[in-house]
């Protein structure tokens, strides 16, 4: 059985040899290079004085501004249901007259080399008239502030009000109130974005290399914006150096580069540089929670009352308000709470627009809720693990509907045994074991967080399987891959059904020319959804093969079985055919099985192939996880060292436990970046201050603690036949929560730890009243 095997990845060899093919590694003859000219001003009125000097530079082919765009071109639409009409806040592919963030695209320079294009960009003559900035959400909500858009500075706001929150707070034995802030940071994949677009005018065919995440969705969007048939556009995903939610959304460049290729009739290549990436890729996470949490004398949490303000930047992009939406819908987490109120606001400011980042809304909400839960437990003088034990949703209450919804889908926790996972985590970590002694200024602390991470969202997924005459298998998946190992995982699923080793199975993905529909890879959905689709397609291939052999050998189907890639007659092994031979029998026009010409339309003689599309369960499937951290905090320097870390979760079924553990361990370190280091800093004028990895710190090997991943495969998801729950976002989701709680524990009662990242400065001032 290849499902559950720690199979070594099929992708690895090419990456280890430097033979991966990322978008910057691709070339087409006679291609030109494009450079995007961006605003250096956060908010300003802009006039192009002259492009002449730039255009006359040797090697410059063209320069386009908003004035050159096709008449009637729409803004980039939001692709997700929102809590309001986002039309007034959407971003156009090039700013016209007014820029609203540092990085706002204003022109594209096309030249024979990137260096020349960059030189030309410097020669463009523009006048800027600065406008008053809206530097943050506090300013955005101030009615006296500058309006960013005619419709104002609030994109949407909404409320959920479940049970009777006011009554529970009024009668509670303990109430805590605090404000928690999560800083703006971003996915920062190690490979920047890029596109290579080629238009063949004679055939009206546009090929775009570089898309990822949701290629089919984005192709449809580009087709609409360019008024081209979808079939005339092919999106081809190369190898991709990480996404984590940000890469692969439809950005201004995703229109501009293909459109310039159409306009000029030559291949156009654009490779983002890192400095550009900082201001251009979706930012995420900037959110503030004002939380009131209440509990009764028995130590049961009775109510959460939350006000949530999210700063989404200058425009609404493809994700709309999904990040605060998820946070508002899932805030109560794995607790049995029936009194919950949240008022959420999606505010706009003069910063880069926002989108998702691995565990969108969850990393933020888990930090705020789990800190508040610790404060409640401390107030009631109950052990923090015991407090959670009393409040977890018991297995009998699953599926559990929170009573909220996000993107028009109900928030439902489908299955699990939360208490069992908690106990396993506590015992593996040694929750009750004494901490190493605090020495001098080094204080030690232990922290815990529990959470539910949604996965497997999105309406459908698809796969086609083709077996060739030699028994080799190709799987065409609607997913995309940014490094997770889907080529291996999906091959393992196909292998489990077809009994063919994964080395003979090739998984192709991210290419709209190979499969007509695909949902893509996001929301920890590929193992759940694409795994399901591949499984379904493999089963129908198997059925078709058995049916064919039964017909050929004139035996009953139920007397045949598939073993090691060969269909055999039960009790007479020598009677049988390999899948390759079956594929040959089923070749269109092959007369072996169907003597010509009984019918012209050879319905079933389309090779040994099958296509399956599967529908999702609207609420998806969720993973319960426990995060535990031991930290050492230096009270004199404010430095935090995470000494050990553990994540335990029930994933239902792990296709490849090695890949699952890799997702968790890597995800934890990404979460540590967001907890301790990473911040996209802006000044009060709205100028982005972090533009390099020297001032935006990613975790290095010295920041990575020993991490244990406990992967439990007990409670199967009822949403898919393999029982899988998606694990891609479990890693980062609880890190700020567990580490924040551990640091607070180390510093002792009275320390305020409510603002991320937990920088040395904040640690030093954590005990100062009024500071946070």
């Amino acid at each position, binding site marked *: 059985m290849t499902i559950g095997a720690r199979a*070594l*990845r099929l*992708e*690895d*060899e*090419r*990456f*280890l*040899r*430097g*033979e*991966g*093919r*990322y978008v*910057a*590694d691709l070339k087409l003859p006679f291609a030109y290079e494009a450079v995007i000219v961006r605003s250096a001003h956060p908010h300003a009125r802009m006039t192009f004085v002259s492009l002449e000097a730039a255009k006359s530079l040797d090697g410059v082919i063209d320069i386009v501004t908003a004035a050159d765009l096709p008449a009637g071109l729409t803004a980039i639409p939001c692709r997700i249901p929102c809590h309001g009409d986002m039309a007034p806040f959407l971003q156009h592919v090039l700013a016209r007259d007014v820029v609203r963030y540092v990085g706002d695209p204003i022109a594209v320079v096309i030249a024979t080399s990137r*260096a020349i294009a960059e030189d030309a960009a410097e020669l463009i003559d523009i006048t800027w008239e600065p406008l008053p900035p809206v530097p943050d959400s506090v300013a955005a909500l101030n009615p006296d502030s500058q309006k960013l858009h005619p419709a104002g500075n609030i994109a949407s706001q909404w409320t959920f009000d479940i049970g009777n929150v006011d009554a529970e707070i009024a009668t509670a034995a303990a109430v805590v109130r605090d404000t928690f802030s999560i800083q703006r940071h971003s996915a*920062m*994949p*190690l*490979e*920047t974005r890029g596109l290579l677009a080629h238009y063949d005018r004679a055939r009206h065919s546009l090929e775009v290399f570089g898309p990822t995440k949701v290629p089919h969705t984005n192709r449809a969007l580009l087709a609409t914006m360019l008024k081209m048939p979808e079939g005339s556009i092919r999106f081809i995903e190369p*190898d*991709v*150096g*990480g996404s*984590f939610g940000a890469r692969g959304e439809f950005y201004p460049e995703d229109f501009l580069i293909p459109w310039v290729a159409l306009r000029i009739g030559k291949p156009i290549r654009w490779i983002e*540089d*890192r*400095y550009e990436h900082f201001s251009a890729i979706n930012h995420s996470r900037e959110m503030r929670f004002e939380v009131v949490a209440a509990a009764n004398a028995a130590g049961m949490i009775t109510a959460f009352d939350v006000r949530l303000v999210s700063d989404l930047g200058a425009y609404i992009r493809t994700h709309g308000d999904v990040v605060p939406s998820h946070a508002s819908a899932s805030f109560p987490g794995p607790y049995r709470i029936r009194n919950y109120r949240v008022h959420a606001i999606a505010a706009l400011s003069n910063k880069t627009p926002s989108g998702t980042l691995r565990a969108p809304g969850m990393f933020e909400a888990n930090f705020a809720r789990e800190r508040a839960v610790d404060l409640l437990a401390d107030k009631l003088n109950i052990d923090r693990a015991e407090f959670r034990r009393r409040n977890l949703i018991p297995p009998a209450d699953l599926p559990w509907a929170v009573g909220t919804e996000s993107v028009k889908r109900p928030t439902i926790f489908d299955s699990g045994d939360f208490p069992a996972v908690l106990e396993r985590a506590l015992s593996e970590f040694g929750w009750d074991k004494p901490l190493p002694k605090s020495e001098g200024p080094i204080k030690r602390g232990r922290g815990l967080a529990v959470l539910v991470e949604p996965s497997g969202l999105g309406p459908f997924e698809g796969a086609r399987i083709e077996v060739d005459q030699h028994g080799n298998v190709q799987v065409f998946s609607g997913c995309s891959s*940014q*490094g*997770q*190992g889907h080529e291996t995982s999906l091959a393992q699923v196909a292998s489990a059904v077809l009994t063919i080793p994964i080395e003979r199975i090739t998984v192709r993905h991210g290419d709209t020319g190979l499969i007509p529909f695909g949902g893509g890879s996001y929301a920890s959905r590929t193992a759940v959804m694409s795994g399901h689709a591949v499984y379904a397609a493999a089963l129908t291939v198997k059925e078709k093969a058995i049916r064919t052999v039964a017909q050929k050998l004139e035996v009953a189907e139920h007397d045949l079985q598939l073993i090691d890639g060969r269909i055999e007659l039960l009790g007479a092994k020598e009677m049988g055919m390999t899948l390759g031979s079956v594929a040959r029998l089923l070749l269109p026009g092959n007369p072996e099985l169907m003597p010509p010409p009984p019918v012209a339309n050879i319905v079933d003689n389309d090779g040994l192939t099958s296509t399956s599309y599967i529908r999702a369960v609207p609420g998806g499937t969720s993973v319960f996880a426990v995060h535990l951290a031991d930290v050492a905090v230096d009270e004199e320097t404010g430095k935090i060292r995470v000494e050990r870390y553990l994540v335990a979760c029930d994933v239902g079924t792990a296709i490849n436990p*090695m*890949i699952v*553990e*890799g997702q968790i*361990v*890597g*995800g*934890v*370190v*990404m979460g540590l970046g967001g907890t301790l280091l990473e911040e996209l800093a802006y000044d009060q004028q709205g100028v982005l201050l972090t533009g*390099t*990895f*020297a001032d935006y710190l*990613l*975790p*290095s*090997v*010295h920041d*990575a603690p*020993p*991490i244990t991943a406990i992967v439990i495969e007990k409670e199967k998801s009822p949403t898919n036949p393999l029982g899988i729950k998606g694990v891609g976002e479990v*890693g980062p989701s609880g890190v700020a929560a567990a580490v924040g709680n551990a640091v607070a524990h180390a510093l002792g009662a009275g320390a305020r730890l409510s603002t991320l990242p937990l920088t040395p400065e904040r640690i030093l001032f954590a005990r100062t009243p009024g500071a946070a």
Partner: protein
Amino acid sequence: MTRTTLTINGRRAQFDTEPRQSLADAIRNELGLTGTHLGCEHGVCGACTILLDGEAVRSCLMLAVQAEGASITTIEGVSLPHAGLTELQTAFRARHALQCGFCTPGMVLALHALFTNNPVADEDAIREAISGNLCRCTGYQPIVEAALDVSRANQDRLSQKT
């Protein structure tokens, strides 16, 4: 345009570049060796690490013309396409020490340089050797484990000899 002559992966190569072209760009664009990746182009991420006269360096921080006469090894020169992977590369695979693969060439070369100088490097030395190489996927733990596997194997071989 300036002519530069150097040795790359054991072969002599000659190309013409503008003096302002970085060595990393020249390796990728003039020599077609795209396994040298550009993650930041300002010397922090380590994805463009190469061996220059045996030393692990960032090729984005040098101009191509400065490499005149140098001997360079890129990831493509570590193991030949039709030969097996090196012990270090094999350990990376066994430990799941790579996901998206973008930092991988730099990591492999940084550790390759370490083991050339110190075949039995301990964990501290391993962490130090890759402290200038960023990985966004793996959390580093499996990379350190893979390197420790190699170090232990080297140790075993050395103790068998004595």
